[in-house]
């Protein structure tokens, strides 16, 4: 090996972190921006180089492993810092560095006036390091370093404006929720190691079929524990509540971490260990059901949110549900495909929303927007592409990936999951166009103040939007359905997912396939039409609907009171229990006993002190009495 191929990719952003810490105060804003963006841009270039080399290998041995050093070795346990590039991590790596680079560039404009500019890029670079470690790791333990590392960066960046108590609170909530998931991840790793004796992917996946009987309790529990980790990181039921609150962070953070990359880590992890999940059909079924449920559940909440970023946040939760749905029905390729297209259009949606917020002097409420299409032409145009893409309108990226998930679900016999996905697709189209119309169409509801400052964003923000719009438009073409021998993306992924159950499911007849496509496009069209009627054509309709569906509207507006439920069921009881333990057990019982012993001694010694009079006469008396007692005692023998 001449020049490092893989470890240099995560090392570059880490080096930028180090430099930023050491000399950042002398660089100024320009220097900091160049350093941060340059490191990530270079990482992207190295990622491209590595992937090209990977692509040059024959299909059967498209894996490159690079061992940096032995991290720890204790008894029969050992873990290395080693990196793995295969078609799966290649896609992740390109998405992370590529979209990451665009968002870095965008941030230079977006954060230009923030006093903590340097700290922002420090965290952002640190995030890139952690995320790249996560996707390039060749064993679970190193992945876990990245896994918790991105969680840390998420915590820091959500709470970036730490003076706002709500931001600080949201950051902590995200971290703790993720830790609950990580509790599962850790135990899953322990179980796998205890049974299979390795945490290194290759070895573990090779041994797993020999030590775990398909469907056995151990592997089912292990994969469910790992999936618990995934629900934390990827904001699925029951651990999703942190993601909407995470919108407290700066918008580029929402785009990078809470839409395009970090939150997809759970999907990546499930896809990465598909050999394990395939040994546990019950776990896969759980993944599918949780994914479908989350997809629908979050979509309904998205219908009634008024904060532009919160709509997108629930949309992200919902779209992540689709990815898990795909993994659950065994269509891992489709899941990763959607992960990629989603990274394009959702990053774009967030950045577009950021551009709107920027233009409106930090206004995020959709009720005080409207009619922005003409004022913000670039933002509007790119947002429209993204909105159509997520709604699933052909030939944009979201159409291909979402359609593939739905048809795979149907083909694998999960018609219930398919139906939920279809309904979710209609809702997605509805709430996304609701957002689009409320923001860009109709009459302006801007405050006079906002109207006055209204301006299109600078080029450093617009260019990333345009690039992402192009990707959202054509990114799906690598996955056109009904092609001989599978589509391009599928062929690329084949070495990884070869033999994975769902992939091999009986192909659908072209007739069925066309019907499914027609249905999903119809669902999208229905959703768009609904939003168009409700929010643009008939101005009173929205209010009438709210009135008619009052209970439902209240429920989704309050996010089904899940946060309140968690508070009442978990947070408050634990807090009160802890208070009780401290005040009652520690201070009363234990210390009471300790002090009691001390007081007893004190009492006894006070009593004894009575004898210590200091008078020789008294002592002589005691002495005489003592001698008498001894003499009597001796005499009785």
């Amino acid at each position, binding site marked *: 090996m001449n020049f490092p191929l893989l470890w240099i990719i995560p090392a570059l952003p880490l080096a930028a972190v180090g430099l930023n810490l050491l000399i950042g105060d002398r660089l100024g804003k320009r220097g900091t921006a160049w350093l941060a963006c340059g490191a990530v841009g270079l990482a992207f270039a190295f990622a491209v180089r590595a992937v090209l080399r990977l692509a040059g290998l024959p299909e059967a041995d498209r894996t490159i492993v690079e061992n940096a050093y032995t991290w720890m070795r204790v008894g029969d346990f050992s873990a290395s810092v080693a990196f793995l590039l295969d078609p799966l991590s290649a896609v992740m790596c390109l998405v992370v560095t590529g979209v990451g680079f665009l968002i870095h560039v965008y941030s230079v404009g977006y954060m230009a006036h923030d006093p903590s500019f340097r700290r922002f890029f420090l965290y952002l670079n640190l995030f890139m390091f952690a995320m790249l470690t996560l996707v390039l790791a060749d064993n679970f333990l190193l992945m*876990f370093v990245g*896994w*918790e590392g991105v969680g840390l960066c998420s915590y820091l960046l959500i709470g970036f404006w*730490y003076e706002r108590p709500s931001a600080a609170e949201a950051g902590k909530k995200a971290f*703790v929720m993720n*830790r609950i998931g990580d509790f599962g991840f850790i135990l899953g790793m*322990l179980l796998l190691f205890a049974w299979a004796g390795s945490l290194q992917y290759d070895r573990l996946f090779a041994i797993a079929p020999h030590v775990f009987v398909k469907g056995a309790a151990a592997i089912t529990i292990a994969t469910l524990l790992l999936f618990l980790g995934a629900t934390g990181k990827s904001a699925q039921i029951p651990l999703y509540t942190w993601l909407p609150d995470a919108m407290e962070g700066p918008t580029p953070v929402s785009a990078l971490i809470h839409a395009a990359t970090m939150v997809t880590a759970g999907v990546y992890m499930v896809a990465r260990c598909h050999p394990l999940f395939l040994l546990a059909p019950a776990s896969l079924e759980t993944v599918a059901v949780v994914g479908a449920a989350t997809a629908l559940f979050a979509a309904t909440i998205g219908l009634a949110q008024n904060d532009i970023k919160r709509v997108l946040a629930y949309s992200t939760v919902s779209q992540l549900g689709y990815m898990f749905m795909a993994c659950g029905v065994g269509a891992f390729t489709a899941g990763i495909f959607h992960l990629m297209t989603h990274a394009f259009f959702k990053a774009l949606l967030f950045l577009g929303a950021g551009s709107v917020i920027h233009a409106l002097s930090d206004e995020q409420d959709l009720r005080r927007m409207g009619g922005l299409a003409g004022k913000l032409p670039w933002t509007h145009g790119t947002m429209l592409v993204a909105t159509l893409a997520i709604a699933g309108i052909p030939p944009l990226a979201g159409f291909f990936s979402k359609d593939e998930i739905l048809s795979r679900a149907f083909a694998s016999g999960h018609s219930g999951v398919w139906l939920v996905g279809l309904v979710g697709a209609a809702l997605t189209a509805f709430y996304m166009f609701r957002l689009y119309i409320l923001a860009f169409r109709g009459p302006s509801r801007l405050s006079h103040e906002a109207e006055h400052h209204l301006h299109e964003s600078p080029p450093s923000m617009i260019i990333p939007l345009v690039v992402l719009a192009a990707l959202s438009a054509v990114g799906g073409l690598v996955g056109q359905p009904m092609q001989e021998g599978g589509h391009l993306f599928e062929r690329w992924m084949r070495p990884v997912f070869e033999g994975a159950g769902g992939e091999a499911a009986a192909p659908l007849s072209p007739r069925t396939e066309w019907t499914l496509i027609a249905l999903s496009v119809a669902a999208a069209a229905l959703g768009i039409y609904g939003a168009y009627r409700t929010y643009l054509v008939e101005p009173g309709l929205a209010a009438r609907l709210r009135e008619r569906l009052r209970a439902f509207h209240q429920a989704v507006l309050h996010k089904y009171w899940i946060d309140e439920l968690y508070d009442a069921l978990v947070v408050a009881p634990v807090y009160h*229990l802890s208070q009780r333990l401290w005040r009652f057990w*520690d201070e009363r019982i234990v210390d009471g006993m*300790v002090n009691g012993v001390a007081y007893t001694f004190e009492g006894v010694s006070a009593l004894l002190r009575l004898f210590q009079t200091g008078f020789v006469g008294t002592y002589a008396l005691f002495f005489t009495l003592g001698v008498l007692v001894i003499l009597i005692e001796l005499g009785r023998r």
Partner: protein
Amino acid sequence: MAHVPWLTLLIFLPLAGAALIMLLPPSRGRAIRGLATGVAAAELVLSLPLWWLLVPGQTGWQFEERHPWLPLLGASYHLGADGISVMLVLLTTVLSVLAVVGSYTAVEKRAREFYASLLALETGMIGTFLAIDLLLFYVFWEAMLVPMYLLIGVWGGPRRVYAAIKFFLYTMAGSVLMLVAILSLYYMNRNLTGTATFDLDAFYRLPIGPAQQSLLFLAFAVAFAIKVPMFPFHTWLPDAHVEAPTAGSVILAAILLKMGTFGFIRYAIPLFPVASAHWAPWIVTLSIVGIIYGALVAMVQPDLKKLVAYSSVSHLGFCMLGMYAMNAQGLAGSMMQMINHGISTGALFMLVGVVYERRHTRMIADFGGLWKPLPVYGAVFLVVMLSSIGLPGTNGFIGEFLVLLGVFRAAPLWAVLAATGVILSAVYMLWMFQRVMFGPVTHAENQKLSDLTLRERLVFAPIILLIFWIGFAPQPFLSRMQPALDHTLELANQRKERSLRMPEARAPGTAAPVADRAPGAVR
């Protein structure tokens, strides 16, 4: 090198330094601080070669020294080190320097006596780790108490006398039991072999029947459990920490608590393996209770120092639990956790000390929004906090993960329960951090606080270095202590088998009563 009495120098250099300091006139504050720093630094420099000179794979004591001490009793001045004690000695010398340098501005009254006590304490601690004659060990063990008692009782907070006495009595209660057990070992050995000795190696060879083991083990275990401290013997710790001056808290948390865990590894487990196994369910249960209980109670503390104190109860629970997994990973994790706890909790107490010096309060409610006036402090605090909650990439993760790995192999359920500590530690630490560092500045006094001075930065720099070093490359540490741990495990297993083969083990009515009655008594 073999002729240099290395360990003796290490033990007594600080004491000599303390004596020198006492010769200075009390008014010469600068000279006193300078001398104290010089002595602590010289001690550190003296201890560093151990890192390279230690031969990890070699069995038996290294740097051994042996001289008759009290020939009449058979006690000898016997010192020796292995991977376990070398690591703890290095931890002691590093943290002692930091504690001394960290106290420059914190201690004003009786500075001379303060630094002398601190250095005398160092002698006691290092002696305790290096003595391998039980009487000598006991002397050092007790000798530590006096300077620590003074540190709390003289330079402590308002309730310092209560805290100092509580600390003293708790520890004394345990020590007395241990002394009785040491004496019984001595007599047992003398009766059996005819030689009067307190030598640990002799006791390692002494066959002890299961019935006798139980009581002796309990005597040692209680002494060590109080020191650790294990639930429910922990209530002296919050009081001692809250009242102690910063340097006292640092040393107390970082080193003194390790005396307990070290005692289990060096004495209680290998000497009495049968009893240790017999009582293991109790110890494991108390450790798990300690992990969860400590974390929960830490969560609701209004006082920063109490919060850190209770977090220690939780962390030390991990140490004990990993140890009682009785396998390679568990023991290595336990040992790592000892080092890590020393580093990160020591640092946490110093961080509390930094703001206490500036604001004369430790109440969380008196802070808020400190990141704004104190960004460097905030960043250091963040790194230390992450190490304390075991974020991968920091030292804390290595220990915690290895403990869980070892424990899971021993009994998965224990690991499941202990792993809840992973969640709880994040809850109490992050919540504290949020209330102290984030949000708007709520008290005007906090607005103009000054950030870390150069001296303070120099104190925290090595800590941060160690946090990441162990986090990313723990192997140099692991490979140094592992052979010693393996040896301990092997020794314990051999002795256990030998004891169980002793005829007495099978005689009904001898082994059973002690073992069976005791749990009820505790309950």
